[in-house]
Each structure stands twice: as structure tokens, then as C-alpha cells.
């Protein structure tokens, strides 16, 4: 057990899997020699050689398309898209190819790939380094979509994703790479070395896909969150003295509906928080599921706190970001409602 950053935890997961399984290969833009722009693959090329970890041309469609071909051969590629904002050239390969290959070939060919990509804002990345495109992937049958919120989970989920027989979209909240972030951007940064979830066990372990976790037991309302927003939710609840039950979804597809329904049935109130834009966001799916399964237990309308339906702005980052003030307001309104 050691305290690790999320970057180190993710690297550890790839290192362990490359060590255990010769078929695991890692590539992407700046991923080989340099170790990735966020350094998640640092040292892997030196350790495993340049046919196991290498630099790719700036062609996201090429990176994902080549990975699909490699997976059809029998490898297990774990590839990096430098920023989630850059994934769109590869969207056809992900949606029409990776996601459907098993189905359309009746299992003749499969696609066990992991597509890692840093997502989310909070780093003044502007519209091309801040997006949260998870809903574009949860809408696609055949994919799994994972969003870790801490180093412990990131390592266990990534190992589970690499071992999974189907394609996994692995969205890494980049604002969490070096420490938890509660949305109070004006305060000093807390490093993972000072947070319990920075404790990362050595060696191989998995956090199963499709299982949410309660970050906080509570009685007054349920907050559904994932990634960075888990910490924003914690801060907002604490600052308003609300006894919230906070569920970190961890995997969006397949979703742990059971944990959600159990919690909302108990509290009768539900606030959904995500950083991505509102309209047709993953929160819409969550809200629909909550009303389908918990309607007669609900004592207030299901609330959503999200990014605004604008491109992610640069100078107005903190006006856009659904921080603790906006989340807190929604918690209070939902309790009063």
C-alpha cells in the first residue's frame, strides 16, 4: 500500500497488466517516449519496449481503428486519446465498429479495447481541453463507460477494464489527477497524499465494472455524482449541514441501478450532479430511471445541477462549472420541495 496520485495509480494498472499479459499494448499521441502529456504512461516504453508502448500519429480514428484490428487479432490494446475533446474523429470507429463488432459477427470477432482519455474541466483548458462527453458513449449499445474519482478506484477499475472482454471508454477526470477537488478553486490544492483514497494497494486488484459505491451514508437526500463532482457534492452537503447520501456511480454503463434505487427509496429525494452540459446529458437518463423506479417514494422533484448548455468557456470557467454554491442551492431547494 502506498499513497499515489491518480496518474501514478493509472500507470500502475497498465504496468501490472503489461507485466501479466503480453497481449496488452499501449499507444497514443506522445504516449511512448515522453510518457503522455499527463505522464500516465511514463516509463512503460523503457520497461516493455517500443513494440508494447509506442507513439502514434495524430490520428484518433487511426489509433482506435488500429486498436480494433489488433483486438481482432487477439491483443488487448489500452490506448490513450490525448484529451476527450479530441475523440470525435474516432467516434465512427468507436460507435460503428468497436461497439458492434461482437454483435454483428455473432462473437466471431470481439473488441477488448480500453480507450483512456482525460476529461472534464477545472484546469482552464477552454472548450477543447475541458469537455465531458460521457453521454455520447452511454448512448451506444455495446460500450462500457467508466469514470473513476480517486486513485484507488482508478487503478482497480482500469485493471478491470483491461481484463474486460468488451470495449471500455475510460474517462479520467483530469482535475483529479493530482488531488481531490471540491470546486473551491480559490483555495490551495489538496494532494492525494493527504487523502485516504490516495491509498493504493500494491499489485493486482480490481474494482468491478458496473458497481457504484456510497461515499457517504445519509438520510435526507441522495446525490448521484461521478468523477470530480463527487467532491463538489461532499463539500456542498457539508457546507449546508445536509445529511446527504452520496453515491459515486464509478461506472455509467452498465449502471448500478440497484444501489441508486435503494438509496432514493430510502431518502425520497434526489439531486443529480454532472459537469457535462444539461440537455440530453447522462443526468437525463438518471432522472428518468429514478422516476421510473422510485416515483411513489419521491417527495420532491428530481433536480439536476450541470454545466450550462454552452461550449466550455475559458475566462468564465467558474461561472460554467457546477461548483458547491450551485450544488448547495439545489440541495436546499430539494429538501424544501
Amino acid at each position, binding site marked *: 500500500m502506498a499513497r499515489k496520485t491518480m496518474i501514478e495509480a493509472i500507470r500502475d494498472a497498465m504496468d501490472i497488466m503489461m507485466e501479466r499479459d503480453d497481449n496488452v499494448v499501449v499507444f497514443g499521441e506522445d504516449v511512448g517516449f515522453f510518457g503522455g502529456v499527463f505522464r500516465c504512461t511514463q516509463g512503460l516504453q523503457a520497461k516493455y519496449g517500443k513494440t508494447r508502448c509506442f507513439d502514434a500519429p495524430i490520428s484518433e480514428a487511426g489509433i482506435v481503428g488500429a486498436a*480494433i*484490428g489488433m483486438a481482432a487479432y487477439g491483443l488487448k490494446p489500452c490506448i490513450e486519446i490525448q484529451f476527450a475533446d479530441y475523440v470525435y474523429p474516432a467516434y465512427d470507429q468507436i460507435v460503428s465498429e468497436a461497439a458492434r463488432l461482437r454483435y454483428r459477427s455473432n462473437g466471431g470477432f470481439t473488441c477488448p479495447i480500453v480507450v483512456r482519455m482525460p476529461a472534464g474541466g477545472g484546469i482552464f483548458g477552454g472548450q477543447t481541453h475541458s469537455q465531458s462527453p460521457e453521454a455520447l458513449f452511454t448512448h451506444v449499445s455495446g460500450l462500457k463507460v467508466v469514470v473513476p474519482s480517486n486513485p484507488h478506484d482508478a487503478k482497480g477499475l482500469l485493471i478491470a477494464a483491461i481484463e474486460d472482454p468488451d470495449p471500455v471508454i475510460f474517462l479520467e477526470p483530469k482535475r483529479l489527477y493530482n488531488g481531490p477537488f471540491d470546486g473551491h478553486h480559490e483555495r490551495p490544492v489538496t494532494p492525494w497524499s493527504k487523502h485516504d483514497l490516495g491509498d493504493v494497494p500494491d499489485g493486482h486488484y480490481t474494482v468491478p465494472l458496473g458497481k457504484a459505491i456510497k461515499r457517504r451514508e445519509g438520510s435526507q437526500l441522495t446525490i448521484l455524482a461521478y468523477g470530480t463532482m463527487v467532491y463538489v457534492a461532499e463539500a456542498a452537503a457539508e457546507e449546508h449541514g445536509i445529511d446527504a447520501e452520496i453515491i459515486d456511480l464509478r461506472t455509467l454503463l452498465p449502471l448500478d441501478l440497484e444501489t441508486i434505487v435503494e438509496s432514493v427509496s430510502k431518502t425520497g429525494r434526489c439531486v443529480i450532479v454532472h459537469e457535462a452540459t444539461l440537455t440530453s446529458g447522462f443526468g437525463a437518463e438518471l432522472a428518468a430511471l429514478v422516476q421510473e423506479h422510485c416515483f411513489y417514494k419521491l417527495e420532491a422533484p428530481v433536480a439536476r445541477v450541470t454545466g450550462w448548455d454552452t461550449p466550455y468557456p475559458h475566462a468564465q470557467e467558474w461561472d460554467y462549472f457546477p461548483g458547491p454554491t450551485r450544488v448547495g442551492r439545489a440541495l436546499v431547494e430539494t429538501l424544501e420541495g
Partner: protein
Amino acid sequence: MSDDGPLGKFGPLSLHVPEPAVRHGGEPDFSNVNIPEAGSVRRPDVDTNPEEIRDLAFSIIRVLSRDGEAVGPWAGLLTHDQLIEGLRHMMTLRTFDARMQIAQRQGKTSFYMQHLGEEAVSCAFRKALAPGDMNFPTYRQAGLLIAGDYPMVEMMCQIYSNERDPLKGRQLPIMYSSKEHGFFSISGNLATQYIQAVGWAMASAIKNDSKIAAGWIGDGSTAESDFHASLVFASTYKAPVVLNIVNNQWAISTFQGIARGGSGTFAARGLGFGIPALRVDGNDYLAVFAVAKWAIERARRNLGPTLIEYVTYRVGAHSTSDDPSAYRPKTESDAWPLGDPIVRLKNHLIGRGVWSDERHKQTEAEILDTVIAAQKEAESFGTLHAGGKPSARDMFEGVYEEMPPHLRRQRQQAGV
């Protein structure tokens, strides 16, 4: 102020939109297709520096002469028996197509795509591959299956989406898939398979294997960005892959000039990537085989990728959903200067004294019987709208290896 400015001495700009030489209602014109003499294009060693064979991207490698003789440095690779087998494969594919085309018209399936005029390309290429090699085909390479002895009944069951459909009714007709026969699942989206072929080949090289991959694409789809990504990856990593472009002149109603632009030929696309690029007579079984063999050997010897443009002509419609007489001259296929691949190989074999019109007719009849028998068997398992079909329950299977809870709930809701 400069007089070069707005509408100054150069006048207004205008947009160039290329047009084919002739459209429907006109007389076919292939005077712009430059056809070199058979046997006139040299055969370089497979390890030749790509820089030294750039001219091959602008010529056409041909073996069969107008008199039906096999001539030049690319001739002499196949025995009589192998050639007769090749002829049978092409004839089988043509008969198979004719029967399935009719079956579609009879409402036994929703859709069909035939190969008429292009049979040599996939039939000959298949014979140059070794077991374990993998094709990433598009929708007009069923010759890879026919020449690889994939059971016709299974192909038909797929076309009919019936109870024996190996793909359980999930795919549009002719989107076959067979790992065992080196035939990657056809997507139906265009060009996506090309970069996947490169990735598969890279994997084979990563594992120090000896297998190679072949990517397939049509002239029109080379305009997709996936095509360019494929050439970058193939070039950068020297992937053991053969990149095939089947130039059949037409992308539905769009003539090849719209995708080709100003580069002269599709093969020339390879030159900027340092990939050896060959152009071959796609209606010449011997030439296709010889060029395929060259490129496959190059890949197998770890010398990297080869780009091949097969110059051919799509005699039939694009699919059962279009009528070519609305966009090109009706007699254009008769005027196509490279002839018919089956007639050419037949005449060659007759010229060699190992085949005859009589044997040809007899073989045609035998093949028709075989195809009809296969069709009867396939139809006993159902057609799209009649008889046995995959269950609605099957629809929910195979999205993931293990069915997740939300799909289990939906299957329950569907009541299947």
C-alpha cells in the same frame, strides 16, 4: 491599392466540379483510359526500393493479351489445374450472384450486391493468401469466400437472415463474417475496415507472427479520412498489409473522378507515403494473382505494405437499390476496354488446349445445379419473410459477452 485585388486583373474565381466523360443517353467513351500492352510492364524484385518503381502507379500490369495468351514477366505462376479452378470460382460467384439477385427480386431477402465483371479481383487474390491471413473486406469481395471454399449454404442463410444464419439475423444481407476463413466482419460503414487491417497486421508483427492482413476499399471510399489514416499507419510502422483499392469506375452514381481528384490514379495515393503502389488489370485473373503474390510476399518478408489498384468495371448496379441507366450509358460495360474476366480466362484456357466451349457449357450447367441445390437447402431453413428465422430473444444476445442488467430487463419487457 493593388490591382490584383477583388476582381482585379485575374477576374472572379470559379469552382471546378469534375464530370464524367459521358452520362446516360450518351455514347460510352473510354478514350481517356490508357491501356498498356499485356506483358509490357516490368516485374521488379519484391525488395526493390519503392522510389524506383513509382511509375508502376501510373501504368497497368497485364498478363493476358488480346489473343488470350499469357505474356510478359508477370506470367507463368499458375498451372492449368489452378487456372481451371480459378475459372470455376469466378463462374460460381457469377451464378451465385445471379440466383441471389433473383431471390431478392422475389422478395426472399431485402437487399443484394453482385460482383458482375469484378469476379477476378477477389477470386484470384484469395488464392495468393496463406491459411491464417486475414482479409478486411468491403461488400464486393465474396470471391474471397467462394475461392476459400466457404460453404455457399451458409452464405445464403446469411443473405436470407434465416434460422441457420451464422450471424443470427443481425446483419444486412452479404455482410458476411468468418474468422476461420480469414474474412473479417463486413461493417457496411465505409473505409473503417482499412485501418483495422493495418492494426491487425501491426499486431501480427508485434507478436512476431508470420500472418499478413489485406485491406479492401472501393475507389469512392478512398476519400474517407480512415483511408489516409491507414496509409500513415501502414507507412510509419511498415505493417505487413496489402492495401487493395478496387477501382470499378463508379461509386453508386458518382464517377471515380470525384474521389480521385487531380492525382491521376488511385494507386498514386501511395507514393506520398513511400508505399509501393501497383496498378493492375482487375479483369485479368493471372495479373491479379501475380500482383497479389508479389505484394503478399513483400508483406511476409517484413518489407512492409503495398498499395494495389485493381482497374475494373462494375457491370451491374451498385446494389439492388439503384438503376445505373439513370446515370451512365446503358452500353458502357460493353465498351469497357478490359473485357470480361471469365471470358478472358476461358479463351486463354481454350488457347492452351486445356478447355473448350463444350466443357465450359457443361461446367456452367454443373455449377448452376450446385448453386440451385445450395439455394434449396438454404431456403429450407427459411427466407427473410417466410419459414424459420432467428428468435427475437437472440436480438438481445451478444451485445456484450455477459448480458448486463439493463438488457435483461429490456428482454423481459419485450416478453421474449
